[in-house]
């Protein structure tokens, strides 16, 4: 297959698809009355698996943007939020745009919105990306940071309108009663059905990202990451490729946002704040930025840590309770960044080599000797 870096990636996709399928079937069949939640001692619920899928889609995009184009976005939650709010607003308040109720209640309308949301968010990223990406280094991080917080405030403050005259985003409380997705009469709910849709999208985005990074575009992006000047000397239009990477990540984030809106059936501004953006960057960095597989890995590790602390934290840290959660989370984050600065994927790949090394023998190269 052209485009794929190696057969390992295809195997990876296949294995992940199998795992997803098995877990989904397990939840549906519930052999012996056990489900995913009871299997993990009520630490990881089926709900968590769906959230991992949704966030994987966002972080895959961020991974390409950060790891391959070398551009940090501290406002990715805004793109995620744009998707969620476009789906949320136009499935519950389409009359604001004069769209008839028959369209609003039709089964294809949410799907159309999902696509329109992706197109709009992509266009938005393109328009803002062009000038911002001219800037180098930290400046993109700062620009996306400002953009992200601005959009978050617009969500929170009902786009600046008075809620009593015209209520668009629902302000602090957000939107409720967002309908479930359906195909004709087939509703993609309960969760076990929705799970398959989410993971289908997640697998598709991973496959798409793998193809992108191992194509001509991907090589150009890596060249930009290495040295922008050198890439330009090799006739790579650096600005253009960086914008493309930003648009790619924004489109994926918007898709995930729409899926999130129909998953929660409600949208509130909270997850799209600056903290939300930071969490996405953390997931990408913990997973590792040199490899698309870092995205699902990072999301899983962070969410499992969070869920574990939520479910078991009070037992481990007696008397403190759920308040200790952010402290432990922060400490784990610091430790991962100090000891595995390249993220889990890159560091895990070095593990077999550590294994082979006989005890007492000195490391062969200075490269390996470095922590």
């Amino acid at each position, binding site marked *: 297959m052209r485009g794929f870096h190696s057969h390992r990636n295809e195997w990876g996709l296949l294995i992940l698809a199998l795992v997803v399928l098995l877990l989904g079937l397990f939840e549906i069949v519930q052999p012996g009355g056990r489900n995913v939640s009871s299997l993990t001692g009520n630490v990881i619920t089926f709900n968590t698996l769906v959230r991992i899928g949704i966030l994987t889609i966002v972080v895959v995009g961020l991974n390409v943007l950060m790891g391959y184009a070398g551009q940090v976005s501290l406002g990715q939650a805004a793109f995620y939020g744009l998707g969620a709010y476009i789906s949320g607003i136009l499935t519950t308040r389409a009359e604001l745009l004069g769209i008839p109720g028959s369209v609003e209640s039709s089964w294809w309308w949410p799907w159309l919105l999902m696509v329109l949301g992706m197109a709009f968010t992509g266009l938005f990223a393109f328009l803002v990306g062009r000038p911002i990406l001219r800037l180098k280094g930290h400046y993109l991080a700062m620009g996306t940071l400002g953009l992200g*917080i601005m959009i978050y405030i617009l969500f929170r403050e009902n786009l600046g309108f008075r809620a009593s005259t015209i209520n668009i985003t629902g302000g602090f409380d957000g939107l409720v009663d967002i309908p479930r997705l359906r195909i004709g009469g087939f509703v993609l709910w309960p969760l076990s059905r929705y799970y398959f849709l989410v993971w289908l999208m997640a697998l598709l985005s991973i496959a798409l990202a793998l193809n992108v990074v191992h194509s001509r575009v991907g090589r150009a992006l890596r060249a930009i990451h290495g040295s922008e000047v050198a890439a330009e000397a090799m006739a790579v239009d650096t600005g253009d490729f960086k914008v493309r990477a930003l648009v790619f990540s924004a489109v994926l984030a918007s898709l995930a946002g729409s899926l999130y809106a129909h998953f929660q059936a409600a949208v509130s501004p909270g997850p799209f704040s600056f903290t939300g953006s930071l969490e996405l960057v953390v997931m990408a960095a913990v997973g590792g930025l040199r490899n698309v597989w870092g995205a699902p890995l990072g999301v899983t590790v962070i969410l499992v840590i969070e869920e574990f602390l939520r479910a078991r934290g009070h037992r481990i840290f007696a008397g403190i309770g759920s308040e200790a959660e952010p*402290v432990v989370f922060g400490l784990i984050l610091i430790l991962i960044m100090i000891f595995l600065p390249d993220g889990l994927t890159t560091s895990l790949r070095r593990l077999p080599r550590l294994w082979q090394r006989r005890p007492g023998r000195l490391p062969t190269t200075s490269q390996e000797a470095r922590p």
Partner: protein
Amino acid sequence: MSVNAQAKQFLKKSRPTRQARTRQMALVAATVVLLGSIILYLGAQKQFGPLQYAQLILDGLRGGTIYALIALGFVTVFNVTGIINFAQGGFVMLGAMLAVTIHNGLALAGWPAGPRLAVAILAAVAATTLIGVLVERLTIYPARNAEPLTLIIITVGVYIVMQGVALIVWGTDAYSLPAFTTLAMQDKTIRLGTLIVKAQSFWIWGVTGVTMAVLYAFFERTMWGRALRACSVNRTAARLMGIRPDRMSALAFALAAAMGAIGGVVLAPATRPAYDMGLTLGLKGFVAAIMGGLLNPPAAVVGGILLGVIENVGAGVTRAGIKDIFAFIILIWVLLFRPQGLFGRQQTVEKV
């Protein structure tokens, strides 16, 4: 494009011509006029007179001074280490909260109002400075060879831990510290004509002014300050001169933490400090630092004050809820049109 034309293009880029400067000035002027007219229009809708504007500006100056202090912390750390320290807001929060706790503890021990406030302030600033050094030694130093992104994420982690610990220790309540003038929760109000100023505002301005003067003297007159500056100009050269960059990094964090804590302590009586106050303040300080170009301490101070005023006037003529948005509009505007900072010269030649 011929080689000659390219060379001309390059020269045009590298040296800001009079034409480019005029264009820049025109852009800034256009923005100021546009912004001013929008503000005046919205203000006219609310029937604002000059007095209302003066009051808004005065209140903005108070907030802006705090932003200036925080921005100085950002600039100091960025200059020496190249890290954007997202834990900066955490230092402000720690300064304010520690001062409250120490003050209340001393009150229980029966100390008189004056000394206990003074001791609480000094102890809080000292403790936060120490925490700043510890943060650098425990988290930044072990990862000193990592990429900037990794270091920035570490500072994010540090902030999460700080806020988390504050949540455990202090809960979600908002606290209060007595005003410095009256030594009571109720502050004295000073009337300048029809304008109202809290006495605490003068403390904020005074303390910030003194801090900046001390900082200036430190950078210009002391050996350590010069070493710090040398390190920000050229790390390698500084090292060859016998300066240890990693120690300077710790010193920069200590200074940043101290400035943050001072900001938090003087701000505490004017607001109600809570465990989550750091994030917004830190981000605003960061915007102020960007307005100053991230490398220039005096410009960062002006940036902070300007930000405070614009933000307060903007919120005054619109709604309080969208107050925070102005800082980020300014941020984007500066990044797009004046990435070298509001007062910086256009960068001459790009480094390869």
